[in-house]
């Protein structure tokens, strides 16, 4: 598996590379120190997995992820956060990250998360579940999220089942226990989680599309195209 590591601390980049390459599963094909370099490296090396630090100066995490996925749509993004600050992590996931890991995670945890993400399974920690719960609640209440205007389009809503799954994950239940409690299979739980992620990303993509359309329409009105 080919990996791109984006982090502004050389010490961390080296550490992550050592952890990933220890078992021979992963190969770090490129490193970058900020979002712009990362996008360039992605274009050049086309990695399968991108590990991105959230607390870099310059381009925000969400923006970097958006651009990276435009360059290499098939890549998966796993975000590394030193602190798990809520808005940054949510933005990252909405922009297309498959989950986040605290930087204080062990090498074993890192490799397991990387493997999971490459397989297409989001890394869904209890803290992230709580953040997502909060986000959907705000969307459902019609409250503005991140200062963007509320309503306007049909916001993606969670089903009852999906909300239940979210709640159990937020309480710290591993998928197996969620499955047992809800009397469904682990596979079903995973499907629910993927659906939740998709809804989160779709709702943010709708928002971006809508804003882009609005801006486009405004421009047309101000400068009507010739003819």
């Amino acid at each position: 598996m080919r990996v791109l590591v984006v982090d502004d601390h050389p010490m961390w980049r080296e550490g992550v590379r050592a952890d990933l390459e220890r078992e021979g599963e992963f190969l770090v094909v490129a490193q970058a120190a900020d979002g712009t370099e990362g996008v360039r490296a992605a274009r050049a090396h086309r990695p399968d997995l991108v590990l991105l630090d959230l607390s870099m100066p310059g381009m925000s995490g969400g923006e970097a992820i958006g651009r990276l996925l435009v360059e290499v749509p098939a890549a998966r993004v796993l975000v590394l956060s030193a602190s798990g600050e809520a808005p940054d992590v949510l933005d990252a996931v909405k922009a297309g990250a498959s989950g986040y890991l605290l930087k204080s995670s062990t090498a074993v945890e890192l490799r397991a998360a990387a493997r999971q993400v490459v397989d297409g399974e989001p890394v869904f920690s209890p803290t992230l579940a709580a953040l997502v719960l909060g986000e959907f609640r705000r969307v459902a209440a019609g409250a503005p999220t991140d200062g963007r205007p509320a309503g306007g389009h049909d916001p993606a809503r969670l089903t009852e089942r999906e909300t239940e799954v979210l709640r159990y994950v937020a309480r710290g239940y591993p998928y197996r226990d969620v499955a047992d409690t809800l009397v469904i299979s682990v596979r079903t739980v995973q499907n629910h989680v993927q659906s939740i992620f998709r809804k989160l990303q779709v709702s943010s993509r709708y928002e971006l599309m809508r804003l882009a359309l609005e801006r486009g329409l405004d421009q047309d009105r101000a400068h009507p195209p010739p003819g």
Partner: protein
Amino acid sequence: MSTPTQAGRRARVLAGAASRPGALLAGVLVVRWCVLAWLVLLVVLGDGRLHVPSGLVAASVTATWTLLLTWRRPPWSPSWLGADLALCAALLVVAAVAPSLATVYPVAAAVTWGAVAGARAGTVAGAVLGAVYVTAHVIEGLTLAAVDESVLDVAGDSFSLVLAGAGVGLVSTLVQRSEAAVRAAEGDRLRAVERAARLGEREVLARQVHDSVLQALTLVHKRGRELAAQPVVGPADVQGLADLAATQERDLRELLLRSRREEPAPAPAGAGHAGASLRQRLLAAAAARPGLDVQVSTVVDRLLPARLVSEVGAAVEECLSNVERHAGTRSVWVFAEDEGVELVVSVRDDGAGFVLDEARMEAAGRMGLRGSVVGRVGDLGGRVEVRSTPGRGTEVELRVPLPVAGAVGHDGARG
């Protein structure tokens, strides 16, 4: 050096103070009294030229007005200014009819207009008064065309009214402008002092934290070398190292975040706030147990009643203490959700679990859960549910009724 709050307060007071020409108006008031005394003297001495009844009336009205001004110290709104002008115009009419030095008092009106509203207003007031004076004299038989001494007197008096109004108005404007400049400079200076004090405080704090972080790093270094020299290393030793690092990491990050946002240190609990942050309380409970890896996740957007937060926090601490004692694991998840009518808090560990045999528990003296947790939650009108499976961990769920949304404030820390 003054504290940041003192300096800040002074800066704000200065910036907000209205610009009133107070000193000028006080001076005018003194002049009014002097002239009034002179007027009264004239009436009393009974100058032959004075028409006594009108003089008396004029003196008493003027005295009443001056008394009112001294007692009420009015804000000199347009109505007050108009009244003053009217009175003085009337005085000038009287003066034209019954000559006396009643022309001195009306200058006060022109001067007050100038002091309050600037040179233009002062000129207008003076011009109005002058016009009234001249007109009154003309009506009384003064022939302007004659250009004799009396005409020159009247003209001079009218002119000096205009001059006085304009002159004092100009002075007032200049004084106010310079006062404003001084105030702005003073405000800037105080704000700079406040910032310096705040930065000073933060530096002290930063130094303290950096000190303790350096100490911790040295300790980690030392312990690391010691452990490396041991033939056999226990997990507990190494975990101790990790915990030490984690605590310092958290402290330092909190300081950095706070300084980035330029926030003051958090107010102590119960500092008269209407509500409290449950998230902060739960994070504090987690921090108090370095022997556990506690993940706190909250879906609570608003501040909750302080007592509820405090009691729930204490109950969660009890649960954590229980986990540390009995569960045999380090991993704990604390989850809180505001369900509108109820607050749900879950404390879950992935430890040994147990069979819920209350009789056996009581016998073994494991009253921790029942005692304070159930007691506290019960006092809040809520209930506790415990779920456990041997080998698959334990979950303690607290449900507490909540006041109606909107009754308390907003919790900025989300997630």
